[in-house]
């Protein structure tokens, strides 16, 4: 087992542990902070996959914006300081079963799937992946239209969010 593999397993363990914490802890602020740990793990994985830009954007968007948004929302929607009642609804064993079946099915599929590469393909030499990504995002032959649609979606969502959450006086 190489150093990289041990590191990957450590990161994966931390991520799974914190993900389980996200879905089980009673206090929602803690859940949001555990989510931050998981998402940071995702950023580490991106960095390991040579997607530096995505890793940095992951930290910026998820930790800098989305996690903060969650914390604000939790603070705005609770009756008192400590979360009351059970964190899980009564039929959570069924949910656990469904989740296990989902994982089992996916794992079975992955086991059955032959020809998954053991090691990554070599990165093309002399090509700046960041430049390639930028060009792919704005070139009309590639992804300019989906990219613009995504930005329109974002604007629409933000306007909608402001409209829905705006307290009328």
């Amino acid at each position, binding site marked *: 087992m190489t150093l990289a593999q041990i590191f990957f397993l450590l990161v994966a363990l931390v991520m799974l542990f914190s993900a389980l914490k996200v879905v089980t802890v009673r206090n929602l602020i803690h859940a949001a902070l555990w989510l931050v740990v998981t998402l940071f793990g995702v950023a580490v994985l991106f960095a390991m996959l040579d997607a530096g830009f995505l890793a940095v954007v992951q930290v910026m968007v998820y930790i800098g914006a989305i996690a903060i948004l969650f914390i604000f929302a939790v603070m705005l929607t609770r009756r008192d300081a400590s979360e009351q*009642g059970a964190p899980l609804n009564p039929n959570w064993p069924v949910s656990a079963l469904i989740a296990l079946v989902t994982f089992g099915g996916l794992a079975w599929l992955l086991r059955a799937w032959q020809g998954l590469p053991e090691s*990554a393909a070599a990165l093309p030499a002399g090509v700046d992946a960041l430049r390639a990504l930028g060009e792919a995002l704005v070139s009309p032959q590639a992804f300019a239209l989906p990219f613009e649609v995504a930005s329109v979606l974002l604007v629409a969502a933000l306007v909608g969010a402001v409209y829905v959450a705006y307290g009328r006086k």
Partner: protein
Amino acid sequence: MIPLSWYLFLSAALFSVGVFGVLARRNAVAILLAIELMLNAVNINLVAFWRYLTPTQMSGQVFAIIVLAVAAAEVAVGLALVISVYRRRQTAVADELDLLKW
């Protein structure tokens, strides 16, 4: 070198945890948190496939970025809805929002 299947297994596990969270949590904000887990699991898959199978084409990274944008939009709208509902019904617990069940 790390086999691709490790990333896929991790992503599957993360996705399943997210599924559990969406189904089992009572609080609407917590459900949104679990949805974030699922979206991130998908992103790991996309980037891992990009790196291992087609590092010359940027499709995987581009899709990951679009998923990121969609996640941001979803969080903004979702949390706005939760706050709006909370303002009217004084609760953010999904089970108690049962007006349509009457």
